[in-house]
């Protein structure tokens, strides 16, 4: 069920009340209840998806238990390999089989051969890319002796399937989330109120910003052959806001919902469009995934140690794999490669850690220089998003070719109906809110905290009104397809 759906609006309060009023006295019961609720949530899409996640849970729980008891390095490697093979195997079959098959057939026909293998008609289980990585972090951390396995199977199951973050992250580490299932949770008023506020903001980003930007991004991308260069630029910008609102909005709802149940999830987005260079962007965008790749792929490969060739190789591997994680299409690989090209000069010149702190500290506005850096980084990001959104590489290149045309300097020509102007105003107001709240976990975390309650509540009513008034056509969360 989608977070912005009536089903979830009914599901959440029921689960919340049962959690805190019926099962709260016993930790095991509380965790078991989370498992049941999460399986209902996940099975709502398709009950068959549950078979995979339950199997994955059993395998990784067993591997973790056996890993801890095993001292011989060869056997430990074998056990870890089982976990990796099972989890990545699921991904390979459900997500990548047809892609590899199609490309193999094309390559074979290129050299003169001809084969007709049968492709698989498989539904991609929602969230598979997320929970497989989450459970892999468990077994890898046990292998590296950073974590003790848990004997509590119920707690482990709850860690794997916890419904707020099951289908689109944040991808939690076992070292961070699993201990929270092993200790009693008690209701905290401020945590719950903060959670509700974050849910509200997440809904605003998803329903108002993302879904409305999606409408115009879709129009422009679907008719890109006829659009002027300036229109295509606008389309890329709309998509940039669509994907940010969609994904960070989902993360906010996930984190806020978790708070209602006494859990603390990691922050997944840290105002990435205020980044001053690409390296900073990648420290602020989809943090849970980028840190996962850093810790479990980049560092084991050698990271930024070793020769320049090795560093370049590792950067490309990370970004290409990250691109490929998003989907079985050459466009995602191209997107990853482009980001690697953006990142490389910074790394080679050792400037990739230049912007580690806050933006415009102690100032209301960025300096002109900072603004130029933010604008340039945003433009580079938008350019890369073209590959992410395009149907295929041909469409991406056609889109880019359309931008670099004399019509780039004309006024955008797509259908500007009466609804786009309010949307543009909303986008402006949204970015102002994000800027003002850039030091907080989410933009409205501390909004109006010194104000009287009626005034604060008026702001919340205002956001709910905007949610109601500007609700776009309901769109699936983009990252559900990953």
């Amino acid at each position, binding site marked *: 069920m989608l977070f912005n759906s009536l089903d979830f609006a009914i599901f959440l309060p029921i689960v919340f009340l049962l959690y805190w009023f019926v099962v709260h006295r016993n930790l095991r019961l509380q965790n078991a209840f989370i498992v049941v609720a999460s399986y209902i949530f996940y099975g709502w899409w398709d009950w068959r998806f549950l078979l995979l996640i339950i199997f994955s849970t059993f395998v990784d729980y067993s591997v973790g238990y056996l890993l801890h008891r095993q001292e011989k390095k060869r056997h430990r490697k074998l056990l870890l390999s089982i976990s990796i093979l099972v989890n990545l195997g699921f991904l390979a079959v459900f997500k990548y089989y047809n892609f590899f098959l199609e490309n193999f057939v094309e390559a074979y026909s290129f050299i003169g051969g001809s084969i007709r293998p049968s492709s698989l008609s498989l539904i991609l289980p929602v969230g598979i890319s997320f929970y497989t990585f989450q459970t892999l972090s468990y077994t890898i951390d046990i292998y590296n002796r950073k974590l003790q396995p848990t004997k509590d199977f119920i707690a482990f199951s709850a860690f794997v399937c916890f419904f707020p973050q099951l289908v689109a992250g944040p991808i939690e580490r076992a070292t961070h989330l699993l201990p929270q299932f092993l200790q009693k949770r008690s*209701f905290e*008023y401020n945590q719950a109120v903060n959670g509700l506020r974050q849910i509200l903001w997440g809904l605003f980003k998803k329903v108002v910003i993302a879904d409305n930007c999606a409408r115009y991004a879709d129009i422009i991308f679907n008719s890109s052959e006829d659009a002027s260069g300036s229109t295509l630029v606008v389309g890329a910008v709309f998509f940039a806001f669509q994907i940010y609102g969609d994904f960070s909005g989902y993360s906010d709802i996930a984190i806020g919902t978790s708070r209602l149940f006494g859990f603390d999830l990691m922050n997944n987005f840290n105002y990435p469009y205020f980044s001053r260079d690409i390296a900073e962007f990648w420290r602020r965008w989809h943090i849970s995934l980028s840190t996962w790749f850093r810790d479990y792929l980049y560092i084991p490969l050698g990271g930024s140690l070793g020769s320049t060739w090795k560093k370049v190789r590792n950067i490309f591997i990370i970004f290409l794999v990250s691109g490929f994680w998003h989907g079985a299409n050459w466009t995602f690989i191209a997107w990853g490669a482009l980001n690697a090209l953006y990142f490389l000069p910074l790394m080679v010149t050792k400037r990739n850690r230049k912007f580690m702190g806050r933006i415009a500290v102690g100032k209301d506005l960025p300096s002109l220089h900072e603004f130029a850096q933010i604008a340039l980084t945003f433009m580079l990001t938008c350019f890369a998003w073209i590959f992410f959104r395009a149907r295929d590489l041909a469409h991406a290149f056609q889109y880019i070719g359309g931008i670099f045309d004399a019509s780039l300097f004309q006024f955008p020509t797509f*259908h500007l109906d009466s609804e786009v102007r309010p949307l543009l105003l909303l986008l402006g107001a949204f970015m102002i809110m994000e800027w003002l709240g850039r030091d907080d976990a989410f933009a409205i975390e501390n909004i109006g905290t010194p104000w009287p309650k009626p005034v604060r509540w008026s702001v919340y009513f205002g956001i709910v009104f905007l949610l109601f008034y500007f609700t776009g056509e309901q769109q699936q969360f983009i990252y559900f397809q990953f």
Partner: protein
Amino acid sequence: MKKFLTFTLFFLALLGFGYLMVAVFVNDGSRERNTYLGALEQKHFRIEQLNEPTIFIAGGSNVAFGTDSRQLEEIYSMPVVNLGIHYGLGVSFITNELKAVVEKGDVVFISLEYLLSGEGDYRVKRQASIIYPEASTYFEADFTKEVRSGLKRTRNNLQYVIDHHLKGIAESGYPKDSFNTYGDIVSTFNNEHHEQLKGKEELQYRDWEGVEILNEFYAFAQRKGVCVYFLYPPYPLSEFQKNETVILKTANYINARLKMDILNRPETFVYADSLFFDMVYHLNATGREKRMKALLEIITTKDEIGRCLQAKSELAHSISAVRNLK
């Protein structure tokens, strides 16, 4: 916890109260009756006035834009009603509507948008039933969908009130008086062709559920003595080239399973983009002329249809003659 629940419930209660106030104010039905779907009332009013075998054209807006009912009426001396209005009503609604109005001796031409949803959009169906209450029998009510469509309706009406009354912005789309008495859209004929047609999409193939619904309607029509024919819709060339594989695969699926006669192929009504008005299925005046010419050619060259229509036409004359005598 008590404080949290108290404040949350109070907040929700205030929200609910605010929503009810807005809903009562804006949902008086006046807006819906003046919109495009308001034409549904006119179409059914025309049907109620008719007392003889009739030619019905049914489908989404491709039919509303692409049919010259008067031409058909003149050739076959039978009244024509263009029921085509909105693809959002879905195949089920369209066939249920037909079931409610067809009588023995009628002829039905169904032209549906590609891969048109069997179920349709609940909100559009609910809006149709607000305008024309009888339409509530054309679909099954669903509580959660009622709640959702109710919320959307309130939102749309609120937007209308703000845009129309406060900002003076005219409602977009086609108003009720875009239609002539036959149910054809005529108001857009003098309007310029839009360079960028709306509604462009990449069709995704599926085994179309509409076939089963149409077959069920066909069985009903046969029992009732009604002739039914299926037509592929008019479609812009650029979209056809983009979606050709999916369209032809869909056509193969339909041709293999649909029991009613199919009068054309998908390519028959593919026209240059310039012959469409503003959206993918909406022909302009010239496009409609071309399509009607092609359609009439099809109907007249396929003998059984001519016989069917001729028989109905004779029947219509007989019925009229008898009624006049009375």
